[in-house]
Protein backbone atom coordinates (compact mmCIF):
# COMPACT_ATOMS: atom_id res chain seq x y z
CA UNK A 1 0.00 0.00 0.00
CA UNK A 2 1.25 3.40 -0.94
CA UNK A 3 1.46 5.76 1.97
CA UNK A 4 1.17 9.27 0.71
CA UNK A 5 1.86 12.04 3.15
CA UNK A 6 -1.08 14.39 2.95
CA UNK A 7 -0.29 18.05 2.65
CA UNK A 8 -0.75 20.08 5.77
CA UNK A 9 -4.10 21.90 5.73
CA UNK A 10 -4.08 25.60 4.95
CA UNK A 11 -5.14 28.13 7.55
CA UNK A 12 -8.57 28.80 5.98
CA UNK A 13 -9.38 25.12 5.60
CA UNK A 14 -8.19 24.29 9.10
CA UNK A 15 -10.24 27.11 10.58
CA UNK A 16 -13.35 26.05 8.72
CA UNK A 17 -12.99 22.39 9.75
CA UNK A 18 -12.19 23.14 13.37
CA UNK A 19 -14.96 25.70 14.01
CA UNK A 20 -18.04 25.75 11.75
CA UNK A 21 -17.63 22.14 10.73
CA UNK A 22 -17.83 21.01 14.34
CA UNK A 23 -21.11 22.86 14.95
CA UNK A 24 -24.60 21.67 14.15
CA UNK A 25 -28.14 23.00 14.13
CA UNK A 26 -30.32 21.51 16.82
CA UNK A 27 -33.35 19.43 15.81
CA UNK A 28 -34.87 18.16 19.09
CA UNK A 29 -35.19 21.74 20.26
CA UNK A 30 -35.82 24.80 18.14
CA UNK A 31 -32.68 26.90 17.52
CA UNK A 32 -34.45 30.02 18.83
CA UNK A 33 -35.14 28.20 22.12
CA UNK A 34 -31.51 27.17 22.43
CA UNK A 35 -30.26 30.69 21.65
CA UNK A 36 -33.00 32.87 23.13
CA UNK A 37 -31.04 36.08 23.69
CA UNK A 38 -29.91 37.09 20.23
CA UNK A 39 -33.22 38.49 19.00
CA UNK A 40 -34.69 40.76 21.68
CA UNK A 41 -32.36 43.68 21.09
CA UNK A 42 -33.83 44.05 17.59
CA UNK A 43 -30.68 42.98 15.73
CA UNK A 44 -31.55 40.94 12.65
CA UNK A 45 -29.15 38.18 11.55
CA UNK A 46 -29.82 36.12 8.44
CA UNK A 47 -26.66 34.05 8.05
CA UNK A 48 -24.44 33.34 11.05
CA UNK A 49 -21.89 31.58 8.82
CA UNK A 50 -20.91 34.95 7.39
CA UNK A 51 -19.02 35.64 10.62
CA UNK A 52 -15.42 34.55 10.40
CA UNK A 53 -12.56 35.28 12.76
CA UNK A 54 -9.95 36.94 10.52
CA UNK A 55 -7.15 35.57 12.74
CA UNK A 56 -8.55 32.14 11.86
CA UNK A 57 -7.34 30.93 15.22
CA UNK A 58 -8.35 27.40 16.11
CA UNK A 59 -8.47 26.04 19.66
CA UNK A 60 -5.37 23.88 19.28
CA UNK A 61 -3.28 26.83 18.04
CA UNK A 62 -4.80 29.00 20.74
CA UNK A 63 -3.56 26.74 23.56
CA UNK A 64 -0.15 26.42 21.95
CA UNK A 65 0.48 30.16 21.74
CA UNK A 66 -1.18 31.07 25.01
CA UNK A 67 0.89 28.58 26.98
CA UNK A 68 4.03 30.01 25.39
CA UNK A 69 2.93 33.52 26.44
CA UNK A 70 2.39 32.30 30.00
CA UNK A 71 5.79 30.65 30.21
CA UNK A 72 7.50 33.84 29.10
CA UNK A 73 5.47 35.97 31.45
CA UNK A 74 6.11 33.92 34.57
CA UNK A 75 9.82 33.57 33.78
CA UNK A 76 10.07 37.37 33.72
CA UNK A 77 8.01 37.73 36.90
CA UNK A 78 10.21 35.23 38.74
CA UNK A 79 13.36 37.00 37.61
CA UNK A 80 12.01 40.41 38.56
CA UNK A 81 10.86 39.31 42.01
CA UNK A 82 13.98 37.28 42.77
CA UNK A 83 16.07 40.31 41.97
CA UNK A 84 14.16 42.60 44.36
CA UNK A 85 12.62 44.32 41.36
CA UNK A 86 10.31 46.39 43.54
CA UNK A 87 13.33 48.50 44.57
CA UNK A 88 14.35 49.18 40.99
CA UNK A 89 11.32 51.28 40.09
CA UNK A 90 12.01 55.00 39.64
CA UNK A 91 10.63 56.10 42.99
CA UNK A 92 8.13 54.95 45.57
CA UNK A 93 5.37 57.21 44.24
CA UNK A 94 5.18 54.86 41.27
CA UNK A 95 3.86 52.02 43.45
CA UNK A 96 0.64 53.97 44.00
CA UNK A 97 -0.30 53.58 40.37
CA UNK A 98 -0.18 49.81 40.90
CA UNK A 99 -2.56 50.12 43.85
CA UNK A 100 -5.03 51.99 41.69
CA UNK A 101 -4.55 49.54 38.83
CA UNK A 102 -5.04 46.52 41.12
CA UNK A 103 -8.33 47.81 42.48
CA UNK A 104 -9.70 48.94 39.18
CA UNK A 105 -8.53 46.48 36.53
CA UNK A 106 -8.35 42.79 37.53
CA UNK A 107 -11.94 42.76 38.86
CA UNK A 108 -13.08 44.13 35.51
CA UNK A 109 -11.13 41.43 33.69
CA UNK A 110 -13.05 38.91 35.75
CA UNK A 111 -16.32 40.55 34.74
CA UNK A 112 -15.18 40.36 31.13
CA UNK A 113 -14.47 36.64 31.58
CA UNK A 114 -18.01 36.17 32.89
CA UNK A 115 -19.47 38.21 30.05
CA UNK A 116 -17.62 36.39 27.31
CA UNK A 117 -18.47 33.02 28.84
CA UNK A 118 -22.10 34.06 28.44
CA UNK A 119 -21.46 35.21 24.86
CA UNK A 120 -19.71 31.92 24.10
CA UNK A 121 -22.95 30.24 25.09
CA UNK A 122 -25.45 32.66 23.59
CA UNK A 123 -24.16 33.43 20.12
CA UNK A 124 -25.84 31.27 17.46
CA UNK A 125 -22.86 31.01 15.12
CA UNK A 126 -19.86 28.76 15.73
CA UNK A 127 -17.40 31.48 14.61
CA UNK A 128 -18.35 34.01 17.30
CA UNK A 129 -18.90 31.27 19.90
CA UNK A 130 -15.34 29.98 19.55
CA UNK A 131 -13.85 33.50 19.50
CA UNK A 132 -15.88 34.49 22.60
CA UNK A 133 -14.81 31.34 24.40
CA UNK A 134 -11.16 32.15 23.70
CA UNK A 135 -11.70 35.68 24.90
CA UNK A 136 -13.31 34.41 28.12
CA UNK A 137 -10.22 32.28 28.82
CA UNK A 138 -7.98 35.26 27.98
CA UNK A 139 -9.83 37.47 30.44
CA UNK A 140 -9.41 34.91 33.23
CA UNK A 141 -5.73 34.83 32.36
CA UNK A 142 -5.49 38.62 32.62
CA UNK A 143 -7.32 38.65 35.93
CA UNK A 144 -4.91 36.09 37.38
CA UNK A 145 -1.66 37.37 35.90
CA UNK A 146 -2.36 40.97 36.93
CA UNK A 147 -2.87 39.90 40.52
CA UNK A 148 0.23 37.69 40.42
CA UNK A 149 2.35 40.50 39.00
CA UNK A 150 1.40 42.82 41.84
CA UNK A 151 1.42 40.26 44.67
CA UNK A 152 5.15 40.72 45.23
CA UNK A 153 4.62 44.45 45.87
CA UNK A 154 1.89 43.56 48.34
CA UNK A 155 4.53 41.94 50.57
CA UNK A 156 6.21 45.30 51.05
CA UNK A 157 3.74 48.15 50.53
CA UNK A 158 0.42 49.16 52.05
CA UNK A 159 -3.10 49.28 50.70
CA UNK A 160 -3.21 46.39 48.24
CA UNK A 161 -4.60 43.43 50.10
CA UNK A 162 -8.32 44.25 50.14
CA UNK A 163 -8.86 45.15 46.50
CA UNK A 164 -11.39 42.35 45.95
CA UNK A 165 -13.46 43.44 48.94
CA UNK A 166 -13.28 47.06 47.84
CA UNK A 167 -14.31 46.52 44.22
CA UNK A 168 -18.05 46.60 44.89
CA UNK A 169 -17.87 49.11 47.73
CA UNK A 170 -15.30 51.86 47.19
CA UNK A 171 -16.59 55.14 45.83
CA UNK A 172 -13.90 55.58 43.20
CA UNK A 173 -14.12 52.02 41.89
CA UNK A 174 -17.80 52.42 41.09
CA UNK A 175 -17.22 53.91 37.63
CA UNK A 176 -15.47 50.81 36.29
CA UNK A 177 -17.90 48.53 38.04
CA UNK A 178 -20.85 50.38 36.54
CA UNK A 179 -19.30 50.14 33.06
CA UNK A 180 -19.22 46.35 33.25
CA UNK A 181 -22.50 46.00 35.13
CA UNK A 182 -24.14 48.06 32.39
CA UNK A 183 -22.57 45.96 29.64
CA UNK A 184 -23.22 42.55 31.15
CA UNK A 185 -26.87 43.31 31.89
CA UNK A 186 -27.43 44.45 28.30
CA UNK A 187 -28.15 42.00 25.49
CA UNK A 188 -25.36 40.02 23.83
CA UNK A 189 -24.88 42.34 20.86
CA UNK A 190 -24.70 45.45 22.99
CA UNK A 191 -22.20 43.67 25.24
CA UNK A 192 -20.03 43.01 22.19
CA UNK A 193 -20.09 46.70 21.25
CA UNK A 194 -19.47 47.78 24.86
CA UNK A 195 -16.55 45.51 25.55
CA UNK A 196 -15.31 44.41 22.13
CA UNK A 197 -15.38 47.91 20.73
CA UNK A 198 -15.39 50.56 23.47
CA UNK A 199 -13.38 48.75 26.11
CA UNK A 200 -10.87 46.99 23.87
CA UNK A 201 -10.54 49.49 21.08
CA UNK A 202 -10.73 52.74 23.01
CA UNK A 203 -9.64 51.92 26.55
CA UNK A 204 -7.15 49.10 26.58
CA UNK A 205 -5.20 50.62 23.71
CA UNK A 206 -4.26 53.44 26.07
CA UNK A 207 -4.06 51.50 29.33
CA UNK A 208 -1.99 48.59 28.03
CA UNK A 209 0.07 50.33 25.38
CA UNK A 210 1.43 53.81 26.29
CA UNK A 211 0.73 53.38 29.99
CA UNK A 212 2.49 50.01 30.12
CA UNK A 213 5.34 51.28 27.98
CA UNK A 214 5.57 53.98 30.67
CA UNK A 215 5.61 51.34 33.42
CA UNK A 216 8.57 49.71 31.65
CA UNK A 217 10.24 53.12 31.44
CA UNK A 218 9.84 53.38 35.22
CA UNK A 219 11.58 50.06 35.75
CA UNK A 220 8.55 47.90 36.47
CA UNK A 221 9.21 44.72 34.55
CA UNK A 222 6.30 42.97 36.26
CA UNK A 223 3.70 45.44 35.00
CA UNK A 224 5.40 45.55 31.61
CA UNK A 225 5.29 41.82 31.02
CA UNK A 226 1.76 41.41 32.29
CA UNK A 227 0.48 44.44 30.41
CA UNK A 228 1.98 43.55 27.06
CA UNK A 229 1.08 39.90 27.46
CA UNK A 230 -2.54 40.93 28.07
CA UNK A 231 -2.49 43.37 25.20
CA UNK A 232 -1.26 40.66 22.80
CA UNK A 233 -4.66 39.05 23.42
CA UNK A 234 -6.42 42.40 23.06
CA UNK A 235 -5.42 42.61 19.40
CA UNK A 236 -7.63 39.56 18.94
CA UNK A 237 -10.34 41.09 21.12
CA UNK A 238 -10.45 44.35 19.18
CA UNK A 239 -10.73 42.33 16.01
CA UNK A 240 -13.65 40.40 17.45
CA UNK A 241 -15.43 43.63 18.43
CA UNK A 242 -14.81 45.19 15.04
CA UNK A 243 -15.97 42.04 13.23
CA UNK A 244 -19.13 42.00 15.33
CA UNK A 245 -19.94 45.58 14.37
CA UNK A 246 -19.31 44.91 10.67
CA UNK A 247 -21.31 41.67 10.84
CA UNK A 248 -24.37 43.40 12.31
CA UNK A 249 -24.18 46.18 9.73
CA UNK A 250 -23.78 43.77 6.82
CA UNK A 251 -26.58 41.47 7.89
CA UNK A 252 -29.48 43.93 7.76
CA UNK A 253 -29.90 47.67 7.15
CA UNK A 254 -32.35 47.83 10.07
CA UNK A 255 -29.43 47.18 12.42
CA UNK A 256 -27.77 50.50 11.61
CA UNK A 257 -29.66 52.83 14.01
CA UNK A 258 -29.30 50.35 16.89
CA UNK A 259 -25.57 49.92 16.32
CA UNK A 260 -25.11 53.68 15.95
CA UNK A 261 -26.79 54.31 19.29
CA UNK A 262 -24.53 51.74 20.98
CA UNK A 263 -21.42 53.22 19.40
CA UNK A 264 -22.46 56.70 20.58
CA UNK A 265 -23.20 55.44 24.07
CA UNK A 266 -20.14 53.26 24.59
CA UNK A 267 -17.63 55.63 23.05
CA UNK A 268 -18.74 58.11 25.69
CA UNK A 269 -18.70 55.59 28.53
CA UNK A 270 -15.19 54.51 27.49
CA UNK A 271 -14.06 58.14 27.40
CA UNK A 272 -15.30 58.81 30.93
CA UNK A 273 -13.51 55.72 32.20
CA UNK A 274 -10.28 56.93 30.60
CA UNK A 275 -10.05 60.07 32.72
CA UNK A 276 -8.42 58.02 35.50
CA UNK A 277 -5.96 56.43 33.06
CA UNK A 278 -5.03 59.96 31.97
CA UNK A 279 -4.14 60.87 35.51
CA UNK A 280 -2.09 57.66 35.87
CA UNK A 281 -0.02 58.69 32.84
CA UNK A 282 0.32 62.42 33.54
CA UNK A 283 0.70 62.41 37.32
CA UNK A 284 1.51 58.98 38.69
CA UNK A 285 4.38 57.82 36.45
CA UNK A 286 7.51 59.57 37.79
CA UNK A 287 9.15 59.20 34.35
CA UNK A 288 6.82 59.94 31.46
CA UNK A 289 6.97 58.83 27.87
CA UNK A 290 4.05 60.79 26.50
CA UNK A 291 1.17 62.79 27.83
CA UNK A 292 -2.35 61.45 28.01
CA UNK A 293 -3.27 64.02 25.39
CA UNK A 294 -0.70 62.63 22.97
CA UNK A 295 -1.82 59.07 23.66
CA UNK A 296 -5.42 60.12 23.14
CA UNK A 297 -4.58 61.67 19.78
CA UNK A 298 -2.69 58.59 18.63
CA UNK A 299 -5.00 55.84 19.82
CA UNK A 300 -8.43 57.45 19.92
CA UNK A 301 -8.54 60.43 17.60
CA UNK A 302 -6.49 58.94 14.77
CA UNK A 303 -7.19 55.26 15.30
CA UNK A 304 -10.86 55.70 16.26
CA UNK A 305 -11.23 58.25 13.47
CA UNK A 306 -9.86 55.67 10.99
CA UNK A 307 -12.39 53.16 12.20
CA UNK A 308 -15.35 55.54 11.91
CA UNK A 309 -14.27 56.57 8.41
CA UNK A 310 -14.07 52.89 7.50
CA UNK A 311 -17.55 52.23 8.88
CA UNK A 312 -19.00 55.20 6.99
CA UNK A 313 -19.64 52.86 4.05
CA UNK A 314 -22.34 51.23 6.19
CA UNK A 315 -23.84 54.59 7.16
CA UNK A 316 -22.13 54.89 10.56
CA UNK A 317 -21.38 58.46 11.56
CA UNK A 318 -18.76 59.73 14.00
CA UNK A 319 -20.13 59.42 17.57
CA UNK A 320 -21.91 62.54 18.77
CA UNK A 321 -19.57 62.90 21.72
CA UNK A 322 -16.37 62.83 19.65
CA UNK A 323 -16.01 66.62 19.51
CA UNK A 324 -16.39 66.93 23.26
CA UNK A 325 -13.86 64.18 23.93
CA UNK A 326 -11.32 66.10 21.85
CA UNK A 327 -11.95 69.26 23.84
CA UNK A 328 -11.68 67.35 27.12
CA UNK A 329 -8.36 65.65 26.38
CA UNK A 330 -6.57 68.75 27.68
CA UNK A 331 -8.51 68.78 30.95
CA UNK A 332 -9.58 65.41 32.30
CA UNK A 333 -6.27 64.10 33.62
CA UNK A 334 -5.76 67.28 35.69
CA UNK A 335 -9.34 67.31 36.95
CA UNK A 336 -9.04 63.68 37.98
CA UNK A 337 -5.77 64.12 39.85
CA UNK A 338 -7.01 67.20 41.68
CA UNK A 339 -10.18 65.28 42.53
CA UNK A 340 -8.20 62.43 44.08
CA UNK A 341 -5.72 64.77 45.76
CA UNK A 342 -8.60 66.34 47.64
CA UNK A 343 -9.58 62.97 49.20
CA UNK A 344 -6.47 61.80 51.09
CA UNK A 345 -8.61 60.06 53.70
CA UNK A 346 -10.58 57.89 51.31
CA UNK A 347 -8.27 55.96 48.97
CA UNK A 348 -5.82 53.11 49.59
CA UNK A 349 -3.18 54.95 47.54
CA UNK A 350 -1.29 58.17 48.17
CA UNK A 351 -1.48 61.40 46.21
CA UNK A 352 0.97 64.31 46.05
CA UNK A 353 1.72 67.64 44.42
CA UNK A 354 3.93 67.25 41.33
CA UNK A 355 7.48 68.60 41.69
CA UNK A 356 8.32 71.94 39.96
CA UNK A 357 10.03 69.98 37.12
CA UNK A 358 6.97 67.86 36.66
CA UNK A 359 4.74 70.92 36.56
CA UNK A 360 6.96 72.36 33.83
CA UNK A 361 6.54 69.14 31.86
CA UNK A 362 2.78 69.47 32.23
CA UNK A 363 2.93 73.12 31.06
CA UNK A 364 4.84 72.04 27.98
CA UNK A 365 2.48 69.17 27.18
CA UNK A 366 -0.69 71.14 27.92
CA UNK A 367 0.13 74.66 26.72
CA UNK A 368 -3.53 75.66 26.44
CA UNK A 369 -4.75 74.56 29.82
CA UNK A 370 -2.21 73.66 32.49
CA UNK A 371 -0.79 77.06 33.44
CA UNK A 372 -4.12 78.78 32.98
CA UNK A 373 -6.40 76.47 34.98
CA UNK A 374 -4.55 73.77 36.89
CA UNK A 375 -1.10 74.97 37.97
CA UNK A 376 -2.59 77.71 40.19
CA UNK A 377 -4.77 75.14 42.00
CA UNK A 378 -1.85 72.75 42.55
CA UNK A 379 0.45 75.55 43.74
CA UNK A 380 -2.21 76.75 46.14
CA UNK A 381 -2.60 73.23 47.57
CA UNK A 382 1.19 72.97 47.82
CA UNK A 383 1.48 76.19 49.81
CA UNK A 384 -1.34 75.05 52.08
CA UNK A 385 0.33 71.70 52.67
CA UNK A 386 3.64 73.38 53.53
CA UNK A 387 1.77 75.58 56.00
CA UNK A 388 0.51 72.43 57.70
CA UNK A 389 -2.94 72.61 56.17
CA UNK A 390 -3.02 69.72 53.72
CA UNK A 391 -6.34 69.83 51.85
CA UNK A 392 -8.73 67.12 53.01
CA UNK A 393 -12.26 67.04 51.69
CA UNK A 394 -14.23 64.95 54.14
CA UNK A 395 -17.60 65.16 52.41
CA UNK A 396 -19.03 62.43 50.21
CA UNK A 397 -18.78 63.14 46.48
CA UNK A 398 -21.69 63.69 44.13
CA UNK A 399 -21.72 61.15 41.32
CA UNK A 400 -23.14 60.83 37.85
CA UNK A 401 -26.10 58.44 37.76
CA UNK A 402 -24.77 56.82 34.57
CA UNK A 403 -20.95 56.70 34.59
CA UNK A 404 -20.69 57.12 38.40
CA UNK A 405 -17.71 59.45 37.96
CA UNK A 406 -17.55 62.07 40.65
CA UNK A 407 -18.87 65.39 39.36
CA UNK A 408 -15.72 67.20 38.36
CA UNK A 409 -15.80 67.74 34.61
CA UNK A 410 -16.33 71.14 33.09
CA UNK A 411 -19.15 72.61 31.05
CA UNK A 412 -18.28 72.23 27.34
CA UNK A 413 -16.55 75.42 26.21
CA UNK A 414 -16.18 76.75 29.77
CA UNK A 415 -13.40 75.21 31.87
CA UNK A 416 -14.28 77.39 34.88
CA UNK A 417 -17.80 76.02 35.18
CA UNK A 418 -18.62 72.54 36.44
CA UNK A 419 -21.06 70.57 34.34
CA UNK A 420 -24.27 69.18 35.85
CA UNK A 421 -27.37 67.81 34.13
CA UNK A 422 -30.55 66.50 35.66
CA UNK A 423 -33.49 64.38 34.61
CA UNK A 424 -36.78 63.79 36.38
CA UNK A 425 -38.01 60.22 36.35
CA UNK A 426 -41.07 59.01 38.25
CA UNK A 427 -41.02 62.20 40.27
CA UNK A 428 -37.43 61.81 41.39
CA UNK A 429 -34.42 63.87 40.32
CA UNK A 430 -31.33 62.15 38.90
CA UNK A 431 -28.01 63.87 38.21
CA UNK A 432 -25.63 63.26 35.34
CA UNK A 433 -22.21 64.69 34.50
CA UNK A 434 -22.76 65.59 30.86
CA UNK A 435 -25.20 65.81 27.96
CA UNK A 436 -24.08 62.39 26.79
CA UNK A 437 -24.63 60.65 30.12
CA UNK A 438 -28.00 62.41 30.40
CA UNK A 439 -28.98 61.06 27.00
CA UNK A 440 -27.97 57.54 28.05
CA UNK A 441 -30.03 57.91 31.23
CA UNK A 442 -33.09 59.29 29.45
CA UNK A 443 -32.99 56.43 26.97
CA UNK A 444 -33.08 53.68 29.63
CA UNK A 445 -34.06 55.33 32.94
CA UNK A 446 -35.39 52.12 34.50
CA UNK A 447 -31.92 50.63 34.20
CA UNK A 448 -29.92 53.55 35.56
CA UNK A 449 -32.08 54.38 38.57
CA UNK A 450 -30.63 51.14 39.97
CA UNK A 451 -27.01 52.34 39.77
CA UNK A 452 -25.01 51.73 42.96
CA UNK A 453 -23.72 55.07 44.18
CA UNK A 454 -21.86 54.76 47.43
CA UNK A 455 -22.55 58.36 48.58
CA UNK A 456 -26.29 57.58 48.46
CA UNK A 457 -25.95 54.13 49.96
CA UNK A 458 -23.96 55.46 52.92
CA UNK A 459 -26.77 57.85 53.81
CA UNK A 460 -29.27 55.02 53.57
CA UNK A 461 -27.27 53.02 56.12
CA UNK A 462 -26.16 50.39 53.61
CA UNK A 463 -22.40 50.88 53.99
CA UNK A 464 -21.67 49.88 57.56
CA UNK A 465 -19.35 47.21 58.91
CA UNK A 466 -21.04 44.18 60.37
CA UNK A 467 -22.55 44.67 63.81
CA UNK A 468 -23.48 48.34 63.43
CA UNK A 469 -27.10 49.04 64.41
CA UNK A 470 -28.40 51.48 61.81
CA UNK A 471 -31.56 52.02 63.86
CA UNK A 472 -29.75 53.09 67.02
CA UNK A 473 -30.72 56.62 68.08
CA UNK A 474 -27.12 57.86 67.92
CA UNK A 475 -26.37 56.19 64.55
CA UNK A 476 -24.27 58.37 62.26
CA UNK A 477 -24.14 57.14 58.67
CA UNK A 478 -20.65 56.75 57.25
CA UNK A 479 -18.83 57.23 60.52
CA UNK A 480 -17.18 53.84 60.16
CA UNK A 481 -16.87 53.86 56.40
CA UNK A 482 -13.12 53.11 56.50
CA UNK A 483 -13.84 49.88 58.32
CA UNK A 484 -16.62 49.04 55.88
CA UNK A 485 -14.11 49.49 53.05
CA UNK A 486 -11.42 47.59 55.06
CA UNK A 487 -9.12 50.46 54.23
CA UNK A 488 -5.56 50.10 55.49
CA UNK A 489 -4.99 53.30 57.50
CA UNK A 490 -1.27 53.26 56.67
CA UNK A 491 -2.16 53.65 53.00
CA UNK A 492 -4.12 56.88 53.55
CA UNK A 493 -2.94 60.45 53.27
CA UNK A 494 -0.29 62.29 51.33
CA UNK A 495 2.69 60.42 49.93
CA UNK A 496 4.97 62.76 51.87
CA UNK A 497 5.47 61.24 55.28
CA UNK A 498 3.95 57.89 54.35
CA UNK A 499 5.29 54.55 55.57
CA UNK A 500 5.80 53.43 51.95
CA UNK A 501 8.00 56.45 51.31
CA UNK A 502 10.17 55.76 54.38
CA UNK A 503 10.44 52.01 53.79
CA UNK A 504 11.34 52.34 50.15
CA UNK A 505 14.10 54.83 50.96
CA UNK A 506 15.47 52.62 53.76
CA UNK A 507 15.38 49.41 51.67
CA UNK A 508 16.96 51.03 48.67
CA UNK A 509 19.74 52.30 50.95
CA UNK A 510 20.25 48.75 52.23
CA UNK A 511 20.32 47.36 48.71
CA UNK A 512 23.28 49.49 47.72
CA UNK A 513 25.41 49.22 50.90
CA UNK A 514 26.67 46.51 53.22
Amino acid at each position, binding site marked *: MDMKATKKLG*LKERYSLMTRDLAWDTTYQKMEDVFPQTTYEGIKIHDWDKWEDPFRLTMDAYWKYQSEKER*KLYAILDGFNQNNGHLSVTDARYINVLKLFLGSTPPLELMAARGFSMMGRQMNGAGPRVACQMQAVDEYRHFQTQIHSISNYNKYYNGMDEFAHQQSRMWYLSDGKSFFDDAITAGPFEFMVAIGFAFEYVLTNILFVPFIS*GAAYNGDMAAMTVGFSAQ*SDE*ARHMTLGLECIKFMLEQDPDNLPIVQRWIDKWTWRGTRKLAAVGMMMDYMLPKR*IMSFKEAWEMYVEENGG*ALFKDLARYGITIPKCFGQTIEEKEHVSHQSWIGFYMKPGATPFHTWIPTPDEMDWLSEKYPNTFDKYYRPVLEFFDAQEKAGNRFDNKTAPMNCQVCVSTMKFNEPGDPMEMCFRESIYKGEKFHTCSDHCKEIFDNEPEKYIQTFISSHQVLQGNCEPEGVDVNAPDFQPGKQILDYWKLDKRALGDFNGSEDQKNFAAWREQATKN
Partner: protein
Amino acid sequence: MSNAFIAFQKNDDSRCIVEAILEDNPNAMVDDQPSMVKIDVPNRLVIKRETVEEKMGRSFDLQELQLHLITISGNLDETDDEFTLSWNS
Protein backbone atom coordinates in the same frame (compact mmCIF):
# COMPACT_ATOMS: atom_id res chain seq x y z
CA MET B 1 -6.03 58.28 4.22
CA SER B 2 -5.84 56.46 7.56
CA ASN B 3 -2.87 54.58 8.93
CA ALA B 4 -2.95 50.89 9.59
CA PHE B 5 -0.58 50.02 12.41
CA ILE B 6 0.88 47.23 14.46
CA ALA B 7 2.98 47.32 17.64
CA PHE B 8 5.32 44.67 19.01
CA GLN B 9 7.22 44.00 22.19
CA LYS B 10 10.89 44.53 21.51
CA ASN B 11 12.80 41.26 21.22
CA ASP B 12 14.92 39.38 18.70
CA ASP B 13 12.00 37.83 16.84
CA SER B 14 10.14 41.12 16.53
CA ARG B 15 13.32 42.84 15.32
CA CYS B 16 13.27 40.51 12.30
CA ILE B 17 9.52 41.01 11.83
CA VAL B 18 9.98 44.79 11.82
CA GLU B 19 12.80 44.49 9.26
CA ALA B 20 10.50 42.42 7.05
CA ILE B 21 7.69 44.98 7.37
CA LEU B 22 10.04 47.81 6.40
CA GLU B 23 11.16 45.88 3.33
CA ASP B 24 7.63 45.02 2.16
CA ASN B 25 6.00 48.37 3.02
CA PRO B 26 8.05 51.22 1.58
CA ASN B 27 5.90 53.88 3.32
CA ALA B 28 6.25 52.37 6.76
CA MET B 29 7.02 54.71 9.67
CA VAL B 30 8.70 53.35 12.79
CA ASP B 31 7.89 54.76 16.21
CA ASP B 32 10.39 53.51 18.77
CA GLN B 33 9.02 53.61 22.34
CA PRO B 34 10.28 52.16 25.63
CA SER B 35 10.18 48.35 25.31
CA MET B 36 7.87 48.48 22.29
CA VAL B 37 7.92 49.47 18.66
CA LYS B 38 4.96 50.71 16.60
CA ILE B 39 4.85 50.71 12.81
CA ASP B 40 2.37 52.81 10.84
CA VAL B 41 1.68 52.42 7.14
CA PRO B 42 -0.82 54.57 5.24
CA ASN B 43 -3.89 52.52 4.36
CA ARG B 44 -2.43 49.01 4.17
CA LEU B 45 0.21 47.14 6.13
CA VAL B 46 1.33 43.69 5.07
CA ILE B 47 3.57 41.14 6.79
CA LYS B 48 4.83 38.43 4.42
CA ARG B 49 5.83 35.07 5.82
CA GLU B 50 8.57 34.61 3.25
CA THR B 51 10.29 37.89 4.10
CA VAL B 52 10.13 37.21 7.84
CA GLU B 53 11.65 33.74 7.25
CA GLU B 54 14.45 35.29 5.25
CA LYS B 55 15.22 37.73 8.08
CA MET B 56 15.02 35.07 10.78
CA GLY B 57 16.81 32.34 8.90
CA ARG B 58 14.19 29.79 9.92
CA SER B 59 10.67 28.80 9.02
CA PHE B 60 8.02 31.03 10.54
CA ASP B 61 4.30 30.55 11.07
CA LEU B 62 2.47 33.89 10.89
CA GLN B 63 0.40 32.83 13.89
CA GLU B 64 3.60 33.17 15.92
CA LEU B 65 2.93 36.91 15.67
CA GLN B 66 0.46 36.31 18.52
CA LEU B 67 3.42 35.99 20.89
CA HIS B 68 4.87 39.41 20.22
CA LEU B 69 2.16 41.73 19.07
CA ILE B 70 0.74 44.40 21.35
CA THR B 71 -1.90 46.10 19.29
CA ILE B 72 -3.20 46.48 15.74
CA SER B 73 -5.30 48.93 13.78
CA GLY B 74 -7.16 48.12 10.58
CA ASN B 75 -9.29 45.35 9.14
CA LEU B 76 -7.37 42.14 9.45
CA ASP B 77 -6.96 39.30 7.00
CA GLU B 78 -4.62 36.44 7.82
CA THR B 79 -3.65 33.59 5.52
CA ASP B 80 -0.73 31.15 5.58
CA ASP B 81 1.42 33.62 3.66
CA GLU B 82 0.26 37.11 4.55
CA PHE B 83 -0.99 39.06 7.53
CA THR B 84 -2.73 42.21 6.25
CA LEU B 85 -4.21 45.22 8.01
CA SER B 86 -6.11 47.72 5.90
CA TRP B 87 -8.64 50.55 5.99
CA ASN B 88 -11.34 51.03 3.38
CA SER B 89 -11.15 54.78 3.26
